[in-house]
């Protein structure tokens, strides 16, 4: 791979080139093996401090990042707080500047507001990794999804990938759309019209409200989590109604290709967007996604820390 990693931060996949995405995927491949060793630790990030700065509850992503950093021998600090630091009277920027003053190297950040990591990236010197911002992007999730697809299908170009569910509020959907389309996949998004973001077709995806269309011919089906609290907002009439139209069950799976991959970013609402027999079935790679998540995050930490060394 000819390109070198030059960015201070990983904020989104929208601004990355196909080559940069390929570079991360390639680097991921070499890190995956570490987690399979009996002693899962390398000294790559020894002496570096990584702060996990989570303004939104998260188990999976936080644990994944934490293990990734620990397996690379970084020192870790966990900050978990309420969505709005304004309640404490300290602004996000002030909090970040305080962390910066403690001379940390990388801040991994999750926030319920879209753009929060972008704001910090422009105002503090440590590298910022976006671990999910509002409805905007979740770049490492997009990368681990793409890595998992590539492991199975050996390529991304020309694949039909369907993303089904609440597209409007999904940062996973956006990161997948950018990453997959940049690498040449044909992406279909499917969900109720009420959960479809405006003008999404202009991102180069096909839009359908008919799950049949999304299932037939798909090489990959990525089922998104439905946030149950959306129910009271009239975004769909009821969970039952949603499941009937957009839930993936054994009956609908009959329309799928024989070698389809079923993915889900988790946590799964069993029986809502996906039935247990599909989630646990032979096509499902949901747990592989989780395993690959650590490797992707190790690769990202490695690439970002490498930049710092060169700069210093």
């Amino acid at each position: 791979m000819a390109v070198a990693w030059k960015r201070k931060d990983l904020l989104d996949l929208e601004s990355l080139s196909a080559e940069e995405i390929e570079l991360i995927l390639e680097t991921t491949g070499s890190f995956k093996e570490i987690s399979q060793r009996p002693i899962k630790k390398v000294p790559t990030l020894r002496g570096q401090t990584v702060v996990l700065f989570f303004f939104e509850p998260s188990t999976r992503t936080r644990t994944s990042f934490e293990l990734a950093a620990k397996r690379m021998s970084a020192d870790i600090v966990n900050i978990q707080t309420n969505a709005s630091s304004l309640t404490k009277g300290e602004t996000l920027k002030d909090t970040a500047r305080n962390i910066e003053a403690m001379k940390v190297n990388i801040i991994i950040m999750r926030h319920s507001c879209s753009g929060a990591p972008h704001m910090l990236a422009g105002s503090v010197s440590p590298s910022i990794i976006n671990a999910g911002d509002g409805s905007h992007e979740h770049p490492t999730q997009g990368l681990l999804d793409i890595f998992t697809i590539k492991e199975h299908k050996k390529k991304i170009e020309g694949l039909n990938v369907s993303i089904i569910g609440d597209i409007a509020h999904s940062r996973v959907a956006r990161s997948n759309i950018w990453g997959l389309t940049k690498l040449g996949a044909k992406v279909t998004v499917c969900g109720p019209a009420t959960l479809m973001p405006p003008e999404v077709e202009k991102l180069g995806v096909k839009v359908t409200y008919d799950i049949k269309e999304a299932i037939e011919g798909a090489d990959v089906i990525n089922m998104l989590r439905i946030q149950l609290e959306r129910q009271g907002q009239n975004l769909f009439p009821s969970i039952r109604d949603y499941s009937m139209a957009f839930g993936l069950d054994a009956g609908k799976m009959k329309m799928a290709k024989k070698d389809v991959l079923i993915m889900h970013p988790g946590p799964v609402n069993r029986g809502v967007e996906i039935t247990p027999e599909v989630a646990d079935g032979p096509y499902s790679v949901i747990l592989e996604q989780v395993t690959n998540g650590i490797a992707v995050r190790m690769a990202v930490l490695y690439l970002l820390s490498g930049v710092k060394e060169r700069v210093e």
Partner: protein
Amino acid sequence: MDIILKNGRVVDPANSMDTEADILVKAGKIAQVGKGLKVQDARQVDCKGKVVLPGLIDSHTHFRQPGREDEEDFVTGSRAALKGGFTSVLCMANTNPVVDNKGVVEYICSEAAKAGLINIYTVAAVTKGLEGKELTETAQISAAGAKALSDDGKPVINPEILRRAMEYAKMFNLPVISHCEDPFLSRNGVMNEGLLSTRMGLKGIPRAAETVMVARDIEIARLSGARLHIAHVSTKESVEAVRQAKKRKIAVTCETCPHYFVLTEEAVSEYNTNAKVNPPLRTQEDVEAIKKGLSDGTIDIISTDHAPHSAEEKDVEFDFAATGMIGLEFAASLSYMELVKKNVLDWKGFAEKLSINPSRLLSLKNKGSLSEGADADITVFDPSGTRKVEISSIESKSKNTPLLGRELAGTAAIVIVGGKIKYENGKFC
């Protein structure tokens, strides 16, 4: 001392005038307008190459006094106005306390007089506390000097209350200025709804949130027979709704702000909170429609919606940032650059949108024209003046503008209020 402005290009739509002439100012009034005026004992001001306009009037300002004097007050706001060429402003009622009774109206009138730089007028709220429930005491408010009624910042949600307010306001010849926004459609929205909001993962405000209320309020205006003025029009569809209403002879006027014909939603990309404003910046198509509306007379007024906010309110997550931008210092330059230089408006149109039309809306006596006997509020505009927008040179207490770093063409050279030079070549007098 009397002042004589020599050889400027005098633009005065009230008298269908656009010609090189002199203006004599005496005892706070315009004493004489004509060519080659010869007067002794008057200060001679050479205005060759400059445009002499009736003092600019902003029909939509927030000076944050009372309540948020850390963001702006009558003095700093007045200085910003003068630097931008404005001699009069109309302050909105969403202060703390709200301008919803005679006492607050009187407070503003007396404090504004103490500031003593420009003419500061006030709106009073349509409903108490801007809550949309109970009418304010209009007879008293009107007698105390309020020039219009508005719950700006919020719509009057209940159309029945708006109808009664307008019927009542009609008796005092007060226009009702409507902030057209359907709060259900716009709920939690922080920018224009469309491809960009999808890309940025931000909740959009659909254009319909504005236009459905424009359409509703036009019908209420027709029903009540009162004067309706629609604030800060931002969409193509709203312009069209007003155009049709005017054809139907409904008493409706409207305004837009420079940011709606200079900027598009692209200004918020990179999550720039200085470009977060309500209604939100829209698209190029809307910009074109607004320019068309200005040129064909559908849009009567260019206002600033000058909305100062402290850095603490802007330097936060986009979702949490306050809406609004400052505008008084830049509106005339932007109107000159985008409209006059690009032949959307001629100088007469410029003076209409920024002076006589706001004066008519608010029934300001002896303002908005250069007629002999009128108040000597005069803006001498220098089309060759330039300014770079930098924090250090902003007069307003707040610096929230997406124009930082931009080069502006056309500046106010001299501003005369009540016959006195208050601002001259970058200096306050």
